[in-house]
């Protein structure tokens, strides 16, 4: 029973993090129909920023979170201007974006290798283990998961409590109708793109703790996990992404505890089941129209 409790709590902690890594990707896809294959590499970029702050500047790596947000917003703006308008003019935006962002992914991976080498990099623990319901969890994991909650909350508030969020949801629901209603789609898309990259940067700092370390190729696996999460939860639905993350986290953790050899497969079995049984994702039928 103790192991079950540990696995469930651990699954929730990791699930919150998985939700965070998926949310930025979902925002980009929901608003612009862009398949951002560089999402995981952008997360890793955030991780390397935290690593640099810790090893070069000798300051707490968590400062990377507030520092990375403005940097990510600027990077997001520049990346948007360079890529998205051209992609939107392509006959098949999704396919074109897949290829372009694959290129971006490779460039980021190569740049990270040149700058940091191929070895895994890690960060020192943020403190001793934390007692949750009588069992000890790494403080960095608890803190990382804890920070994911307000981050997801901020995005929820943006989408559902602000005018710009309303416009964003309008574009997610139907871009043409949004244009007809006077929504400034390009402004909405630029903002969503920047926010998506900012969320990747936040997740990046936490990823070094959650994954035990990062290396230049960690991004590819994170991209796949992020896609898994958003497809399970349903595309374009932030709440679905959070739930998708929790499901993947719980499935992984419980499998580790009770069917260890299946650990690598279960999240993808879950993905296949969702795609086959409910192709719109678990929350696909509950997407609110703007």
């Amino acid at each position, binding site marked *: 029973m103790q*192991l079950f409790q*540990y*696995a469930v709590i*651990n*699954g929730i902690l*990791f699930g919150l993090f998985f939700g965070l890594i998926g949310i930025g990707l979902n925002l980009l896809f929901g608003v612009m129909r862009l*398949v951002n294959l560089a999402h995981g590499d952008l997360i890793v970029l955030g991780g390397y920023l935290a690593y640099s702050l810790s090893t070069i500047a000798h300051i707490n790596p968590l400062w990377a979170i507030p520092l990375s947000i403005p940097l990510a917003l600027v990077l997001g703006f520049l990346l948007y201007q360079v890529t998205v308008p051209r992609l939107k003019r392509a006959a098949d935006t*999704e396919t074109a974006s*897949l*290829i372009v962002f*694959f290129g971006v992914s490779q460039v980021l*991976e*190569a740049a990270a*290798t040149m700058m940091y080498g*191929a*070895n*895994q990099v*890690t960060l*020192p*623990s943020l403190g*001793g*283990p934390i007692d949750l319901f009588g*069992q*000890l*969890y*790494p403080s*960095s*994991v608890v803190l990382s998961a804890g920070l994911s909650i307000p981050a997801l909350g901020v995005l929820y508030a943006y989408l559902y409590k602000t005018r710009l969020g309303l416009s964003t949801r309008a574009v997610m629901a*139907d871009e043409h109708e949004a244009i007809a209603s006077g929504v400034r789609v390009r402004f909405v898309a630029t903002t969503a793109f920047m926010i998506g990259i900012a969320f990747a940067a936040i997740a990046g700092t936490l990823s070094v703790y*959650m*994954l*035990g*370390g990062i*290396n*230049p*190729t960690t991004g*590819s*696996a994170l*991209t*796949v996990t992020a*896609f898994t999460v958003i*497809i399970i939860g349903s*595309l*374009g639905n932030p709440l679905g992404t959070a739930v998708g993350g929790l499901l993947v986290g719980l499935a*992984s*953790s*419980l499998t*580790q*505890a009770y069917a*260890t*050899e299946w*650990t*690598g497969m279960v999240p993808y079995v879950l993905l296949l089941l969702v*795609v086959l049984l409910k*192709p*719109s994702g678990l929350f*696909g*039928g509950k*997407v609110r*129209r703007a």
Partner: protein
Amino acid sequence: MNDFAKRTSIGLVASSMAFAGLAALSTGSAMGASPKSSSNTISVGTLYASTGSFATSSLPEYAGLQFWAKSVNAHGGMYVAPLKKKEKVKIVAYNDQSDPATATTLYNQLLTQNHVNVMVADFGSVLTAPAITIAKDQKQLLFDVTGSGTSFFSNGANPYVVLTSLPVSAVWPKPVAKLLESLKTKRVAILYCQNDFDQAQATAIQGFLKQKGITPVYFQGVPTTQSDYSTLVQSIKATNPDAVLELGYPNNDIAFLNELKATGTHFKFVLTPFLGQLPTLFSQDVGASTVANTYTYAVPPTLVINKVNLGLGLTAFVHHFAPGKASTVNFLDVAGYNAGLAVQAAFAHATSMSQLGIRAGITAVNGKLQTLEGTFKVDKTGEQVGELLPVAQAVPHGNGYVLKIVYPATPSQKTMVNATPIYPAPTK
């Protein structure tokens, strides 16, 4: 929206698969490729991984091989018996970026496009596996540096594969089992990664223990890509083990040890394979206090072998390979260099320039060749049987630790033992 979501969900699954395909294609790009070998050089084809999960180990191995080629060429080349003269060595290398599928293509490319004289495999069993198949199918001599998966050597005599650095992985844990027996441990937990290298070790040690009437209290495999060990550590802890063997690649070992540190989990005995091969990396990524008292396999430079009849002894190698930076030299640097020495010995005693003629050179020196890794001896399957690994423990020393040999693999290694095991490991 629902139709759209349905279409795009399926589309994205396809996209993800396309991503994997694109990734595989992209890693196929050649780096450092050379044209066909010229008549005045002996071309040695190899692969290395500059990125990916095996880069940590592959790059030093490649550096060791390059150092060998540079050393040989500085002396006018290596002696090639069938030609009765020295020839310069040329390394033809491609970057497989830790991807076995890419490695398959590139190993083939080394043979069909570059027409290399012999091949040296990339690091480890995962990236060596494609080369084993190609070597057998195309009757091409392969110097397998560290691919010690038991399955590579389980199909009878094979003259085309020569394991240069390590015994097959199933042999590795034998001294560990004996050490556990001597420590009177009864409850052993084994967590392994699902690849040839680790799985063979796990199965072997399970067998050794069963012979002593001990059934592991925990015996589970995880994907080699595993990075989250939190629930796994708790599962192991629940079995109340006397000893824990975590059998993985460097990233697995590091993640596992970091999980122990982060959760304050203490086991009486912990063994990880790669601490002995990459001690500097472990100090940096895990920290000396966590590494202290853990066990590993002892390899050079922890094992100091200076009595050699080919190439440099260990001390001289360290001095020349990394002048002034002795602590940065690791086993994989040595392994790459040692593979070069095996190639050198093969050509020096080859009976012809055919693949079997070059292999005959290995037969000629088999059991007689002494290198910085010890006695070089392979059996008819190509399996290395001369270089068995003792067990070492990271003994606290000042603010760090030193690896001390605590249990020998052979009676002749008893003189190398320089510490007694600290068991149970003290609580940190």
